[in-house]
């Protein structure tokens, strides 16, 4: 079973995403902050990370860079309510950038895609 690390500071959204990914058959681990996400990457060895950007403390872009530094092979999908972060080149380190929506179809599809590409490598 593929393991997804879900990084999201909003409790309600985290629950929404968790249920959505569990429905897809993934094992979901959670982090509420960037620093917690880094600890989870090391302890839980996820197959992919779904990462919010606008979080208190270490933001998602900083967290993305640190995850890449820890393990450059873990695909990361940025999941933000804002498109404007695409202008920051650091966001391009991510494998995909999704604008948040209550409909999780696009996010699920992209996560499937990055996991398939990772498996193919």
């Amino acid at each position, binding site marked *: 079973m593929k393991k997804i690390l879900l990084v999201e500071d909003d409790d309600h959204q985290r629950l929404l995403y968790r249920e959505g990914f569990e429905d897809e058959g993934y094992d979901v681990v959670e982090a509420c902050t960037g620093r917690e996400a880094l600890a989870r990457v090391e302890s839980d060895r996820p197959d992919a990370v779904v990462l919010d950007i606008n979080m208190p403390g270490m933001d998602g872009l900083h967290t993305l860079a640190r995850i890449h*530094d820890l393990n450059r092979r873990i695909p990361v999908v940025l999941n933000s309510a804002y498109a404007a972060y695409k202008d920051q080149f650091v966001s391009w380190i991510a494998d995909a950038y999704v604008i948040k929506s209550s409909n999780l179809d696009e996010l699920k599809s992209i996560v499937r895609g990055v996991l398939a590409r990772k498996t193919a490598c």
Partner: protein
Amino acid sequence: MTSSDWNATTLVMLLAGGEGERLYPLTKKRAKPAVPFGGLYRIIDFTLSNCLNSGLKRIYVLTQHKSLSLDRHLRLAWSLLHPELGEFVQTVPPQLQLVSRWYAGTADAVFQNLHLLGEDHPRDVLIVSGDHVYRMDYGPLLAFHAQHGADLTVACTQVPCAQATRMGVLEIDGEARVRAFTEKPASPVPLPYDPSRALVNIGVYVFETEALVRAVIADAKQTSRQDFGHNVIPAMVDDRRVYAFDIVEHRPPTERYWRDVGTLDSYFEANLELLLPEPPLDLFEGAWPVRMHSCQHPPALMRNVGDLEARAANSIISPGCVISGGSVLRSVLSPRVFVGAGAVVAESILMPGVRVGERALVNRAIVDENVVIPADARIGCDHADDRRQFLVTEGGVVVVPEGALIAPSDAP
């Protein structure tokens, strides 16, 4: 477009972080770009002067190893731009912002500074090196890059195939599009129209900014040396628009001079080339000034001592030097060098503050800063003897490092 237009659309990243191992011991305490050259200059002054003379005034200098002397030099010599007008020469040592390591390679230095590109959002990024001595107007290169709609344009020159085995070799088609790029090939592919010569990379690149960002990120995800020549450029050749700008084809003879002064022998030869009757790099050309920093020194002085005449021929004698009854032949003297009575300095490079004692002989040597050569000493006259104390290069150049203590010739 004018030079100010290029400045508006182009950001310069000058790579100055290499360890400079092959120039050791000159790089024992200083970064390679900070190694003195041509008496008054540092190696980096040539690239920075090219930028300034081309109108490019937004320059990040990515530093790393032993950067103190380079930092100091940049502050003293290159604090002439106007930050309030958006001009700058800014050093950027590893910030450990994105990652927790030093710059692993040239491409990693850019990767670690993606945020700088994001702040400026230039159309193009000119990537240059602080390790080369050359004269180049970057304007025609930038125009060529724009005309071809290139993702990357690699500046290059032509060298004999035998020499190309030590360099990055480009294979191009009839439209100057790069079809292959091979670092240090055993059998370099020659030019289509000259089987004796190959086209080689001179470490000057223009990237369309987004292509650069994608390329360094893609490379950072691989296990690689994170180097432009070894990894990034070869990976771009197949699916991006990569073009070659041949300075022999596109530039006048005055701009075809380019030297990699990365080894002690090439550094030595490039210095002595300045002394030729028609030097390939003319420091006296007013239209292309090479800036440097020089402290306040009295003028160079040559004085006879008794019957011993002070002589200097085919040499660079910097301010503050005193030739006191000695002879200087085909040599480069940095400021504050003293040559004593009866001493002879021939085909040598003497860095600031070197003192050559009476009757000493210095032949085909590089003598680093503030070394005191005692009276009657012999350097470069007997390599077996020289090797007991100093490094002697393949080309037969003796290198006397900073801090060397040289015993007088009559010492036990």
